[in-house]
């Protein structure tokens, strides 16, 4: 049954190496035996945050992404502090040498422990993720006391330690990392000078003007910036650094030197092992090197002639590699990345993407400058698309711009909107413009990117297909409109999926057809429906919805097969995240008594209930109850079930009404109690939360309930339907105004029955009322336009009559093990049978 695991050796334990392993584990946890070589003696840490370690705002321990325990927990063997030196492709073995404790992990000549045994690991596949090392421009005197690189946690420690003995420090390199190093040094009380060879700072991201602006900002912080300066020699006196000699003949006094002048891929292991290496290790679109069994990822890679040093492209490479190597998607391809970054340099917001200068005569350049606030915005538009952009000091629209840039989409003709947001206040953003990482489905955490992928690659062109593929829209459902817009944006039009209209996915009938078939054939159990209407094919995703419908159609006669019910309806309690349950006794109209409260308190004490909480529905919730305690608790409570766990009538809240309230116009408490007595336990397509209010001040929030009654002057009650105050907020629609409690009960019941019969499974009343229309509902329910009012009244009465308190099952369980804890298997018989099975 178990195929032997293939062995994967990952060389390099930096961000790329660890990330690719995570991606692989996500796709196929048990496919590979994974061994990693990491030259640094740590787990993997977030190099991006190194400057925070240097400036002391984060402890080294805080930036670890995968501490050593992670490797253990995931069954990954890590050779920490061991540098892989060669891949013997003949023998399929990776050979590594333990490094000396103080060796510089990325140095070409990092010293190995003399005479230490080499580490050898056989492999089926290798991933090279050796990353890069800092580039040191040619100069005399670099190396030894007082000179540093800025690349690893050890570098940070050593820089910080040495800075204590210094007054002046210089940073060679005015790129992003150089500036970060300067910022870090400043916090250690030294005078900092940045030396940059180019005429400006951050030449990869900024144009000259924004470079100058950034320079001004930085100099105001007390850092000296010198551009067009090339260091030729580090001059020492008595073993300590004294000054720098520069190419233009000038000198600069300094006590220490940090070099941060860019990076170069680490490729030695690939070269000595005979793989193709150019500037970096050459990989194809599947991240394979010139050897089919050896892949590479990250800063060591040269892909289509480009080397990437930013996180996003490398994450994309890691995903592709994981897709390919696990065969999760054997055809996955990485096609290169467009470069854009959003970052904070020394506290200054910066976003930069694409080109920094126009390169064609037709390029349109839009610039806004506000030197007093240090704000600079520039846009290069080519063929109505963004070829490049710089936002310095204010980056509000960076997300949108980045999205447009990355997706190569046409931009607004009002360029100002792109830099400042829309002047009309309308969102500049259509769903189309949202960045890929924007979360669309907040319940299931699905990003726009994932939905886009499902549309474009998964060919899901209906909302339900998107849901099936990504889970988007399957929580509260309020994002379904956005999903439909995304489908329109990326696929042209939303396909109306016939299956979207099925009542449940496993029975190909719309609700009305299904109801007709069930009635005609007299189907009273879920298994009978599968047998007769689904070709005998049992569909677990359809069971619960069918059970609800059957109970509605056959009050008192329904054959309650508990396997067709959600766990909550099997044990009449609401399952919690830890597998315990919540118990909510019914408190009619939100009115309780000292005796009831005392019993609830006694039960909570007796069964060690970890939490007792007031619910939003004016009752008490006992949370964290063990399953086997449920029947005992119900017996001790002696109060009926509050049905707080099922798709049914839940509660009827009330305000103080007329007994005590100075403003009360109608007896909302009495009415609420009558409503709750009558409709308790009535199942419906989704839950129904009700309320009554004694006056239009709406203290019980009646206007936003599924069904409600509000007392108004003149001894009248207004009945509202379709209100909501959950994920969706909606004021209910006025159905009609009546005089008596009996009338309230009659019309509420009639609407309930109509909703029970026509609502889609899991369609709340607020969707139902909007879908059908309040006018149509009023005609049917109030004016009896279809002549079914009497039948609706009779059917809801049957449902009311069929009510049985489910907590009565405390006495006699409905099925074996209903309230059973996991059964400890007493091992009755153990047979050593060498794999043969009876």
């Amino acid at each position: 049954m178990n195929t032997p695991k293939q062995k994967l050796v990952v060389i390099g334990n930096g961000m790329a190496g660890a990330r690719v392993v995570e991606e692989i584990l996500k796709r196929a946890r048990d496919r590979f035996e994974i061994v990693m070589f990491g030259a640094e003696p740590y787990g993997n840490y977030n190099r991006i945050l190194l400057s925070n370690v240097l400036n002391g705002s984060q402890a080294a321990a805080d930036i670890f992404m995968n501490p050593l325990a992670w490797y253990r927990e995931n069954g990954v063997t890590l050779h920490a502090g061991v540098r892989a030196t060669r891949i013997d492709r003949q023998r399929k073995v990776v050979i590594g040498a333990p490094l000396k404790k103080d060796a510089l992990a990325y140095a070409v000549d990092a010293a190995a422990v003399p005479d230490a045994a080499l580490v050898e690991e056989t492999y089926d596949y290798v991933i090279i993720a050796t990353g890069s090392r800092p580039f040191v421009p040619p100069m005399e005197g670099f190396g030894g006391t007082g000179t540093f690189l800025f690349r690893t946690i050890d570098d940070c420690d050593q820089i910080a330690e040495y800075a204590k003995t210094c007054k002046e420090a210089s940073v060679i390199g005015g790129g992003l990392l150089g500036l970060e190093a300067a910022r870090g040094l400043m916090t250690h009380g030294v005078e900092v000078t940045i030396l940059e060879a180019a005429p400006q700072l951050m030449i990869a991201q900024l144009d000259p003007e924004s470079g100058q602006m950034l320079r001004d900002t930085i100099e105001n912080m007390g850092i000296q910036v010198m551009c067009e300066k090339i260091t030729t020699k580090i001059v020492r006196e008595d073993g300590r650094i004294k000054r720098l000699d520069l190419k233009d003949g000038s000198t600069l006094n300094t006590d220490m030197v940090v070099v941060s002048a860019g990076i170069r891929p680490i490729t030695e292991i690939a070269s000595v092992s005979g793989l193709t290496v150019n500037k970096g290790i050459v990989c194809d679109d599947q991240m394979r090197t010139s050897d089919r069994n050896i892949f590479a990822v990250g800063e060591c890679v040269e892909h289509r002639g480009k080397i990437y040093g930013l996180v996003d492209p490398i994450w994309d490479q890691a995903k592709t590699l994981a897709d390919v190597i696990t065969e999760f998607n054997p055809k996955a391809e990485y096609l290169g990345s467009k470069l854009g970054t959003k970052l904070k340099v020394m506290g200054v917001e910066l976003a930069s993407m694409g080109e920094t200068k126009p390169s064609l005569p037709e390029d349109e350049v839009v610039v806004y400058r506000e030197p007093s606030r240090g704000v600079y915005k520039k846009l290069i538009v080519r063929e109505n698309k963004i070829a490049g952009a710089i936002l310095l000091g204010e980056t509000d629209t960076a997300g949108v711009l980045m999205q447009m840039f990355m997706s190569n989409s046409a931009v607004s003709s009002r360029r100002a909107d792109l830099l400042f947001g829309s002047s009309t206040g309308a969102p500049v953003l259509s769903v189309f413009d949202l960045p890929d990482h924007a979360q669309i489905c907040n319940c299931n955490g699905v990003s726009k990117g994932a939905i886009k992928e499902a549309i474009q690659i998964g060919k899901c062109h209906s909302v339900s297909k998107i849901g099936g593929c990504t889970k988007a829209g399957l929580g509260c459902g309020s994002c379904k409109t956005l999903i439909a817009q995304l489908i329109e944006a990326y696929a042209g039009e939303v396909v109306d999926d016939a299956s979207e209209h099925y009542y449940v996915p496993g029975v190909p009938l719309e609700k009305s057809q299904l109801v007709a078939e069930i009635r005609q054939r007299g189907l009273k159990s879920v298994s009978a429906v599968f047998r007769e209407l689904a070709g005998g094919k049992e569909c677990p995703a359809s069971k619960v919805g069918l059970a609800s419908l059957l109970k509605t159609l056959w009050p008192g006669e329904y054959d309650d097969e508990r396997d067709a019910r959600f766990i909550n309806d099997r044990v009449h309690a609401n399952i919690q995240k830890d597998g315990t349950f919540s118990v909510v006794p019914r408190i009619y109209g939100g009115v309780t008594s000292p005796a009831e409260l005392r019993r609830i308190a006694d039960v909570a004490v007796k069964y060690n209930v970890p939490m007792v909480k007031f619910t939003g529905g004016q009752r008490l919730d006992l949370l964290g109850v063990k399953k086997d305690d449920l029947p005992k608790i119900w017996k001790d409570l002696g109060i009926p079930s509050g049905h707080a766990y099922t798709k049914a009538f839940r509660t009827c809240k009330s305000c103080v009404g007329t007994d005590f309230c100075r403003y009360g116009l109608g007896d909302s408490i009495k009415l609420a109690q009558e409503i709750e007595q009558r409709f308790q336990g009535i199942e419906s397509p989704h839950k129904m939360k009700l309320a009554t209010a004694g006056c239009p001040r709406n203290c019980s929030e009646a206007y936003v309930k599924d069904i409600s009654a509000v007392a108004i002057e003149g001894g009248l009650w207004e009945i509202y339907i379709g209100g909501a105050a959950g994920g969706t907020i909606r004021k209910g629609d006025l159905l009609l105004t009546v005089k008596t409690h009996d009338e309230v009960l009659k019309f509420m019941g009639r609407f309930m029955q109509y909703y029970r019969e026509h609502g889609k499974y899991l369609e709340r009343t607020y969707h139902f009322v909007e879908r059908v229309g309040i006018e149509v509902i009023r005609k049917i329910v109030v004016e009896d336009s279809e002549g079914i009012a009497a039948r609706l009244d009779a059917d809801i009465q049957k449902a009311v009559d069929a009510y049985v308190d489910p907590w009565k099952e405390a006495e006699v369980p409905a099925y074996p093990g209903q309230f059973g804890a996991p059964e400890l298997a007493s091992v009755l018989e153990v047979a050593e049978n060498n794999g043969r099975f009876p």
Partner: protein
Amino acid sequence: MSTSTQTINLGSLEAIALGQGRCFIVGGEEIAVFRQRDGQLFATQNRCPHKQGPLSEGVAGGGKVICPLHSHKFDLVTGAGSEHGECVKSFRVSAVNGEILLQL
């Protein structure tokens, strides 16, 4: 090398309600055993890899189970999950003379 497997008798089939699952603790490990309406038996690890929901409490049928916490689905034969990279261990199980025999 021959691999030795253990067969464990979990007791009467009747302990599991028709169409449902039930959790057994075998040697400290929680194992969910499912008794499908057509008579087939299945066994998987009890805990959902997503948020450790008890699969034995899930709705099962058609060779699948739906976790009661967040509706992640798993194939009861292969253990394959509906979500990226999620799967559960599955075990061989059968009924002999009305008793459940689990193979570990």
